[in-house]
C-alpha cells in the first residue's frame, strides 16, 4: 500500500469517524432531549387529566346536589314518606333529572336501597342497591369512579351521591357522567400525543373497552399485555408499542391506573407519545450526516490527494533519487522545497549523495591507483620471472667468454635457447595482457549451454586423469531439455573454460567437479562447483577484481574475463563458498537478448568499468 493511499485512508477514516461521532452525539442528545420533553409532556397531560377529572367530579357533585335540592325531588321524598306511597309514579323522574341537569346517569334510591327510578337502566327499578345505603356520609363525599351497569353493557362513570331527607324519609340521589371518549376529547393534547382510556369493567382484557377521543382504538389488542400488567400490579407503567416494522410507528405509553372507591381498578389512563418525530429527526440527522460524509469524502479525496501529493511528492522524488543512487548515479540531487522535515530530508539526501559521489570518486581513484599498482606489481612479477633467467643467461654468456670455444658454444647454445624461451614467455605474458585489454564484443547466435559446457570440460579431461596427479571426478547435472539461448559461443566457451580451470586449480589434491544447468524461466542457470578448500568472504568479495588472484602463478584475469563475458551477455555471476567445502560459481544468462544487444559490434556500447562489473558480480 502506497504512502499516498495510507494518507488518503487515514484522512478518509478520520473524516468518517468525525462525522459518525458527531451524528451519534447529536442523535443521542436529541433522543435524550426528546425523552425528557416526552416525560414533561406526559406529566403535564397527566396533571391536566387529573385537573379535568377533579373539575368534572366537582361539577357532578354540584349537579347531583342540584337534583337533590330541586323542588320536584323534595316533593317526591314527601310523597314517598306517606304510607302506601306509589313509587311507580317516579319511574321517569330520573330520566327527566338527567336531561335537565346534563348528567348521563341519574338514579333515585329509596331509603331501603330499592331503586325507584333510573335514567340509564329503568328496567332495574325495584331492585336493591345496598352499597348506597351502607354509607352515611355521602353528603361529604366527593365524586368517585364507578362501574355503571347498563342494559347494553357496562360503563365507567364519574359518580356522586347525595341524600335528601324529609322527616324520617331519606332518598339517595346518584348522579354521574360517563367517562369515555367525550371526556378524552376535552383534553388538549400536544402534537404527537394521544390519550386513551381503558374501562376495566370486564373480567378479562377487552379491546373494545379501549377508546380514544374518536372511539374504539384500532389494534387495541396490542395493549393486552400492558393492561394485564396493570391489572396484576396497579401502578404507573410505561411501555413502548410498535405498530409495524417502521420504528417511526412506535409509541411510548404511560399507563396510570384509575381506581374506584374501594381501591378496585376500574380504568387505565394511557398517555401515548409517538416516536415519529424523534425517529424522523434522527433519520434527518443521519441523512444530513450521510450527505456531509459524502461531501467530506469527496472533499477529502481532493484534499487528501492534494495533501498526499504535497507530502509524498518529495518522498517519491527522494525514493526515485535513492533508486538512482542504487543504480549507480551517485551524484543524484533532488529539489529542496521549504524547510520542513521533508525539506530537511531532501537536503540531507543531497548531502548524502554528494558525500557518496565524492567518496565514490575517491574510491574509484583509489581503486584505479590500486589497480595500477596491482597491474604494475603483476607486470613486474610476470616480467621479472622471464627477466631473471634472461639476466642469468646473459651473465652466463659473459662469463662463458672466458671459457673455451666448445664450452662457450655449448653455453651459448643453451643461453640462446633460454633467451628465446624466456623472450617467448615474455611475449606470451604481454599477449595475455593485450588480449584482456581487447575483449571482443559478443556476437550472439543460438547456443546450447549444455554443449558449450561439455566442450569446455572436454579440453581438460586428460588432466582429470593425468598420471601422477590426484584424480578429479566430474559430475553432470544438466537439464537436457534446456533451450538454446542467444549467446556468443566462443566467449561463453572461454568463460566456462576459465571457470573449469579455476576449479582445477582449486583442487590440487583432487576432488569432484560438479556441473549443473537448469531452466529458470527467462534465464538459464549454470553452476560450476568444486570441492576445493574454498574461499574466505574477503576473497569472495575481491574475486572478480582484475589481476587479483589467490594463486602463485595466476594473472588474476581469468575470473575477470568470466565476469566480463557474463556482463556482456546481460547476465550475472555470483560465487558462494565455504572454507573447507569448496566453491560454487553461479551464472545466470538470459535466454533472449534485447534487440539493442543483437546489433553489430560497432554499435555496441563501451564495456562497463571494471569496478562496476566487480560490484555486479559481488552482489
Amino acid at each position, binding site marked *: 500500500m502506497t504512502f499516498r493511499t495510507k494518507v488518503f485512508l487515514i484522512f478518509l477514516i478520520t473524516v468518517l469517524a468525525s462525522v459518525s461521532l458527531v451524528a451519534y452525539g447529536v442523535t443521542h442528545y436529541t433522543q435524550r432531549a426528546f425523552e425528557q420533553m416526552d416525560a414533561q409532556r406526559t406529566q403535564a397531560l397527566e396533571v391536566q387529566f387529573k385537573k379535568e377529572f377533579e373539575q368534572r367530579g366537582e361539577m357532578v357533585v354540584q349537579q347531583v346536589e342540584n337534583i337533590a335540592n330541586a323542588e320536584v325531588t323534595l316533593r317526591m321524598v314527601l310523597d314517598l314518606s306517606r304510607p302506601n306511597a306509589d313509587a*311507580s*309514579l317516579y*319511574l*321517569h323522574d330520573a330520566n327527566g333529572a338527567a336531561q335537565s341537569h346534563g348528567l348521563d346517569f341519574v338514579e333515585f334510591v329509596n331509603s331501603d336501597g330499592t331503586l325507584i327510578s333510573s335514567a340509564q*337502566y329503568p*328496567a332495574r*327499578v*325495584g331492585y336493591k342497591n345496598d352499597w348506597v345505603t351502607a354509607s352515611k356520609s355521602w353528603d361529604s363525599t366527593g365524586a368517585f369512579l364507578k362501574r355503571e351497569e347498563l*342494559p*347494553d353493557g357496562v360503563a365507567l362513570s364519574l359518580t356522586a351521591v347525595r341524600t335528601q331527607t324529609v322527616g324520617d324519609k331519606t332518598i339517595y340521589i346518584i348522579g354521574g357522567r360517563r367517562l369515555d371518549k367525550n371526556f378524552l376529547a376535552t383534553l388538549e393534547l400536544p402534537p404527537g400525543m394521544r390519550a386513551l382510556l381503558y374501562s376495566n369493567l370486564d373480567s378479562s382484557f377487552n379491546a373494545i373497552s379501549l377508546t380514544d377521543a374518536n372511539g374504539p382504538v384500532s389494534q387495541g389488542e396490542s395493549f393486552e399485555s400492558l393492561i394485564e400488567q396493570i391489572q396484576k400490579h396497579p401502578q404507573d407503567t410505561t411501555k413502548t408499542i410498535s405498530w409495524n416494522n417502521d420504528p417511526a410507528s412506535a409509541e411510548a405509553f404511560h399507563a396510570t391506573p384509575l381506581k374506584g372507591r374501594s381501591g378496585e381498578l376500574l380504568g387505565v389512563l394511557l398517555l401515548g407519545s409517538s416516536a415519529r418525530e424523534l425517529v424522523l429527526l434522527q433519520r434527518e440527522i443521519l441523512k444530513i450526516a450521510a450527505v456531509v460524509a459524502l461531501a467530506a469524502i469527496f472533499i477529502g479525496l481532493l484534499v487528501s490527494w492534494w495533501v498526499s501529493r504535497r507530502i509524498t511528492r518529495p518522498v517519491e522524488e527522494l525514493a526515485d533519487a535513492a533508486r538512482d543512487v542504487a543504480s549507480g548515479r551517485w551524484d543524484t540531487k533532488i529539489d529542496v522545497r521549504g524547510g520542513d522535515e521533508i525539506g530537511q530530508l531532501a537536503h540531507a539526501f543531497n548531502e548524502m549523495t554528494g558525500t557518496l559521489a565524492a567518496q565514490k570518486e575517491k574510491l574509484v581513484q583509489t581503486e584505479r591507483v590500486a589497480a595500477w599498482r596491482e597491474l604494475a606489481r603483476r607486470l613486474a612479477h610476470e616480467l621479472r620471472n622471464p627477466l631473471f633467467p634472461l639476466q642469468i643467461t646473459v651473465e652466463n654468456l659473459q662469463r662463458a667468454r672466458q671459457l673455451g670455444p666448445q664450452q662457450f658454444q655449448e653455453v651459448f647454445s643453451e643461453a640462446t635457447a633460454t633467451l628465446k624461451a624466456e623472450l617467448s614467455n615474455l611475449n606470451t605474458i604481454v599477449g595475455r595482457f593485450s588480449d584482456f585489454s581487447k575483449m571482443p564484443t559478443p556476437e550472439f547466435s543460438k547456443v546450447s549451454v549444455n554443449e558449450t559446457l561439455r566442450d569446455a570440460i572436454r579440453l581438460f579431461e586428460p588432466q582429470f586423469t593425468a598420471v601422477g596427479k590426484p584424480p578429479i571426478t566430474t559430475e553432470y547435472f544438466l537439464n537436457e531439455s534446456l533451450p538454446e539461448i542467444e549467446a556468443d559461443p566462443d566467449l561463453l566457451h572461454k568463460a566456462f573454460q576459465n571457470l573449469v580451470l579455476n576449479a582445477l586449480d582449486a583442487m590440487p589434491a583432487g576432488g569432484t567437479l560438479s556441473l549443473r544447468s537448469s531452466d529458470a524461466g527467462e534465464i538459464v542457470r549454470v553452476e560450476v562447483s568444486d570441492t576445493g578448500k574454498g574461499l574466505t568472504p574477503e576473497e569472495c568479495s575481491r574475486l572478480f577484481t582484475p589481476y587479483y588472484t589467490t594463486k602463485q602463478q595466476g594473472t588474476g584475469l581469468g575470473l575477470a574475463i568470466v565476469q566480463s563475458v557474463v556482463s556482456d551477455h546481460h547476465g550475472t555471476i555470483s560465487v558462494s563458498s565455504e572454507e573447507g567445502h569448496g566453491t560454487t560459481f553461479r551464472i545466470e544468462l538470459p535466454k533472449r537478448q534485447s534487440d539493442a544487444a543483437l546489433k553489430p559490434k560497432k554499435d555496441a556500447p563501451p564495456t562497463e568499468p571494471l569496478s562496476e562489473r566487480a560490484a555486479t558480480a559481488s552482489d
Partner: protein
Amino acid sequence: MRSIKSVLRAAISAALALVAAAALQAAPPRFGGTLRVKLRSSRISLDPREWTPGSLNSSDSRKIASLVYDRLVTLNDYGQFQPALATEWTHDATFKTWHFKLRAGVHFSDGSALTPALAAAALQSTSGKNFEIAATEAGLTIHSLQPAPDILEQLASGNDFIFRAQLDGKLLGTGPFLVAEAVPEAPAEANPLATKPARIKLLANENCWAGRPFVDVVEVTLGEPALRQLLDLQVNRAEIAEITPDLVRKGREEGLRIWNSAPLVLVALRFDDALAAPASDSLHEALWLAIDRDTMANVLLQRQAQLAAALLPQWLTGYAFLFESPMNLPRAKELRASFPAGVAGAEQALRLHVDAPGDLFKLMGERVAVNARQANLLVQVAGVGSANNTAAPSDGLHLFAWHYDSLSPRTELETLLRQMPDGSDLGANAADPEQLFAQERRLLEEHRILPLVVLPEYVGLRANVHNWNGSPWGDWRLADVWLEAEDTSSGKAAGSTQKENMPARTPGANQ
C-alpha cells in the same frame, strides 16, 4: 227561613246549571271540519291483502281502511251483529255454508255499483283458502270446509273488507271517506337528512250509502313519535292521537281526554331456539318463573297494562282468568342449576330480540333480562325490530307484540300460532270454547310462548271531538265523530262546511 231560601236559591242555580249543561251536551252534531289524526306507524297500507296478521302497523292500517271500506256485517257494543253491506244472512245446520244478501244501491267512491261478484272477489282475496266464496244473484255464498259458526265474528273484524281493485292497482271502497291524497315519506326541505312524515288525506264520501260523515276531511299524519303526539294534542295540532301506556298517566294529569280500548296488544316472549328437550323446557320454564310481570305492568307500564297469563284476552275468550303466571324465583334458580353445560342462557347469553318497535318494548325486554339475571340466566337484549310480527330469522328469544285482530277467538289463536316459527295448528273443532281452552293450555304449558302483559289502546282526544264511540276491540268509528267549531265568537266554524240538509249519519243505518 233565610237558610231555606239560600238552599232553595242554590238548588235552583244548580238545576239551571244542569239544564244549561244538558242543553250544551245535547247540541246537534255539526258537519264539517278537518279531523287531524296522528299515528305512530310510519307507513300504512290501505290494501287489506298486504296486512300482516297481528302486527301493530296493520292495526293502524285497518283503522284508516275502515274509513274507506265497509264490511258485510259489523258488531255493536252490545255484541249484536249489525247489517252493513249485507242485509241478511243465513246458514245451514252445519255452519259450513252461509248465504249473504248484499245491500242494493251501494256504489263505490267512483260511482260504480257494488256487485256480488266484486264483493266475492274482495272477500276471497282476504280470507284465503279456508272459504270458497261465490257470488249469487242477490248476494254471495261462503262455503267452509270446517264448520264456521264464528264466521260473522270473522267478517266483522280482521281484513275482510269489501273493495274493488282498479286497473292501476288502487282500491276503491264504499265507506264514508275516500282517499284524496296519499303523500309518502319525503326528505324535509329544511333538513334533507330528516324525513317529512307520510300523510293521508281522506275526504267525506258525499254519496255514502250510510250517510255522509260529519267531518269533511280526515288528515292522517304518520310516523309521529309518542311524546310528539301528546304535545300535538296539547297545542291543538291534532284532534286524535295515539297515547302510549307510559304517557297515559302524564296525559291525564295534564287534563287530556284519553280513551282506552279493551286489552288489544299482547306482549309476549317467544323461543325460536333449536335446543333439545329437556334442556329447552327447563330454560323456558325457568324464564317463565323468573319474570316479574307485576313490576312490568304496574311500574314500567304505569298500571296501564294487565298481567297476561293467557294468549287470548279475557274479553275475547272469557276463560283467560283460569290461567296463572306465578313468579317463583327459587324454583327458577333450581331449574337453572340443573342446566347441562353449553345451554344458552347459562354460560353464554341468550339473545333477546325485541321485535316490537318503540322504547317501551325495549324497556320491557331489558326488564326481562334483569329478571332473568336474578335467576342466574344470562339474557342479552340484542336489538329492536320492526312493527311487523313476522318471525325473525335469528334464533333465540323474541319479545313481540301481537295485536288481536279478529273477534273470533279460534281465528285469533289460529292466526297467532300460524305466525310462530314452528307453525303450530289448532286442529279441527277448536271452535268449542272448552277445546280452545285445552289447546291454549297445552301451548302455554310448553312454555314456547310466554305471555307477559296485555295492553289496551289509548287514544287522546281533543275537547272539540264529539261523539267518539270507539269500540272495545279497537274500531275508531270516525265517521260518527263531529267537531265542535273552534271560533265561536265569529259564529262561524273554522274550516267547516255546514250541511244543513244532510241527514245525520246513523251507524248501522241500512235503509
